[in-house]
């Protein structure tokens, strides 16, 4: 198993009375509450943490979110370029520029090719469907987001791999009549591609495309359903069974000298779920097209009905369910791994076993009021005392212990 680190560069330094008075902490909170000096420190610390990964052998993940206290990483390629230049050994995953929000996938391909060259071929490319408040923040329609996602991936993939001069693209959502990017990527073949999704339909597409599927904060049940959909789609397409190297899981993760110390740090990570996800209904359940019309009764009525058995929660419902959890609840639900090196290892392996295996674990290692010192301590303990044991976990057939 490989480990990856991500710091979303959250911004917790807004007065509680301001946050409590706001109907959303994303999209609409005025940026007068974002102190540039504090932001600069947060970025400097985050970059230090990423560089520490190079020493610890933890690969790095660079994310993107817009206009909120949940993340200052509005521009994925900016951090990506810094990591490409300043790390020397680890793999770098962009997860990722939010492709359905940007009008020109060819520009994104240029950014990725450049990062791959600067890093001398250490780039991996991840795609995230985006959504919720980010449609408003980026003037992107919530309608047909999934179709835009795949078309953008197709165009980016072709732009990164086509080496014989100009080609033209006149698709449904994107047109670019004259594509011929320089530089071309450093890697001789298309960099490995990832897709972050929990919904079974998209999971099937990810399986058929043989991408790495990453589940973020979904817990064992949601993860099992999504991984199974991926495997079933591959089988239906006549593809060979996937290995565990095609699956990944991202969770909040904190390691202390003792179990108690790790859990205490884990509690600080919970800020991400309890404070930074709060959003107004127009950026969540009420978004046009987010849920099919038959789901409307559960959305429009003031007393929503529960999700029916067998249905998976939407991204908005998942976000809602994540809020207001304690560290213990989050640990029980597989969205936080926290404790001593020993107990964290056990939590990870229990989760690994329960979902049928994965080769990539992403440590969301800093959030909220967790300090830089706490983060680097947690990372170092993880890198030195947990990661060597995870490295022993072999790549096997995915879903090895699952009913399908």
């Amino acid at each position: 198993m490989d480990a990856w680190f991500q710091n979303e560069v959250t911004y917790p330094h807004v007065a509680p009375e301001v946050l409590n008075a706001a109907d959303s902490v994303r999209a609409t909170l005025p940026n007068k509450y974002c102190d540039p000096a504090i932001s600069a420190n947060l970025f400097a610390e985050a970059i230090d943490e990423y560089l520490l990964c190079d020493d610890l052998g933890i690969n790095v993940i660079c994310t993107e979110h817009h206009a909120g206290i949940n993340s200052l990483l509005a521009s994925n390629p900016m951090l990506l370029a810094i990591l490409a230049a300043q790390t020397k050994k680890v793999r770098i995953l962009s997860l990722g520029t939010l492709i359905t929000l940007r009008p020109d996938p060819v520009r994104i391909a240029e950014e990725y090719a450049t990062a791959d060259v600067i890093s001398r071929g250490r780039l991996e490319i991840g795609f995230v469907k985006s959504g919720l408040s980010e449609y408003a923040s980026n003037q992107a329609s919530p309608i047909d987001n999934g179709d835009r996602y795949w078309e953008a991936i197709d165009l980016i993939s072709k732009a990164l791999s086509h080496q014989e001069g100009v080609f033209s693209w006149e698709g449904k959502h994107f047109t670019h009549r004259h594509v011929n990017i320089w530089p071309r990527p450093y890697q001789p073949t298309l960099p490995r591609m990832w897709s972050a999704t929990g919904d079974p339909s998209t999971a099937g597409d990810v399986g058929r495309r043989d991408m790495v599927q990453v589940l973020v904060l979904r817990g064992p049940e949601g993860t099992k359903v999504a991984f199974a959909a991926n495997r079933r789609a591959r089988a239906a397409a006549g593809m060979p069974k996937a290995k565990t190297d095609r699956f990944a899981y991202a969770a909040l993760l904190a390691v202390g000298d003792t179990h108690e110390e790790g859990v205490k740090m884990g509690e600080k990570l919970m800020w991400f779920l309890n404070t930074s996800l709060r959003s107004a209904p127009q950026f969540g359940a009420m978004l046009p097209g987010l849920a099919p019309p038959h789901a409307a009764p559960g959305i429009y009525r003031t007393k929503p009905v529960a999700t029916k058995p067998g249905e998976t929660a939407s991204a908005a419902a998942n976000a809602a369910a994540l809020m207001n959890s304690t560290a213990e609840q989050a640990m029980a639900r597989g969205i936080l791994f926290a404790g001593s090196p020993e107990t964290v290892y056990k939590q990870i392996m229990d989760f690994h076993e329960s979902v049928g295996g994965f080769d990539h674990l992403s440590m969301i290692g800093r959030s909220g009021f967790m300090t830089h010192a706490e983060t680097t301590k947690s990372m170092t303990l993880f890198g030195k005392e947990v990661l060597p044991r995870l490295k022993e976990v072999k790549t096997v057939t995915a879903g090895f212990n699952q009913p399908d």
Partner: protein
Amino acid sequence: MTTATASPAPSSLAIGDIELDVLRHGAGKPLLLLHGFQNVDPGAAFLNMLGDHAAIIAPSHPGFGKSSRPKDVDTVYDLVHCYLSMLDNMPEEKVTLMGFSFGGWLAAEIAVKAGRRIDRLILVDALGIKISDRETPDIFDVFNMHPDEVRQRSWHDPATHAPDYDALDDGQLANISRNWEALCRYGWHPYMYNPQLKRWLGQIKVPTLVLWGASDGIVKPAYGEAYAKLIPGARFETIPAAGHHPHIEQPRAFVDRVSAFLKA
């Protein structure tokens, strides 16, 4: 003349591969009614009142109500051409064209393109053009703003007229949700207007009434007044104690204004 129907009757009409759900009611000269954010409720009070003055033909736009939407029908261009085709296939030489809100945008586009088939045009709290400067939105953003504020701005008296979602059945709520998705598909960008339409409104030659809810907070009466000035000879009138949907909040006053215009 169209045969009268006792109560609003749904029927369907094929425009190529689009199956339009069409509500028909009333007797008299045909009046093609293009709805706004939601398709026309067969139980709406204004239908019976207006049916005394005209034969109402109220299709649900593709993707709204029970009307189908082929996958490649996803722009206002498609809707306009759908209704141009519908007009071409109607036996009457001319019809009255009325549009509410988003449907008012469609009606204005159609009136520019097919003036020969229209005898009168009625725009009610219509969207479709850009009036103010680049930093002043004319049309309140119903997608990006809080639903409570959208509700507040949509109605003169929201407590009485805004839909109570807890009182609606599953089918009605699913219909609202389907309409909301369709509206977003057609109107997201540029938000609820065609930058080119304004310059062509001067080509509309038919008598036009621009009717506005005095309390409309989605598009203010000043926008309606500016809209009317761009259409030669258009009359602008407001209906007191009504918001963005005057036909629902003040059905009697609304029908009186429309029927007076039809007779004038």
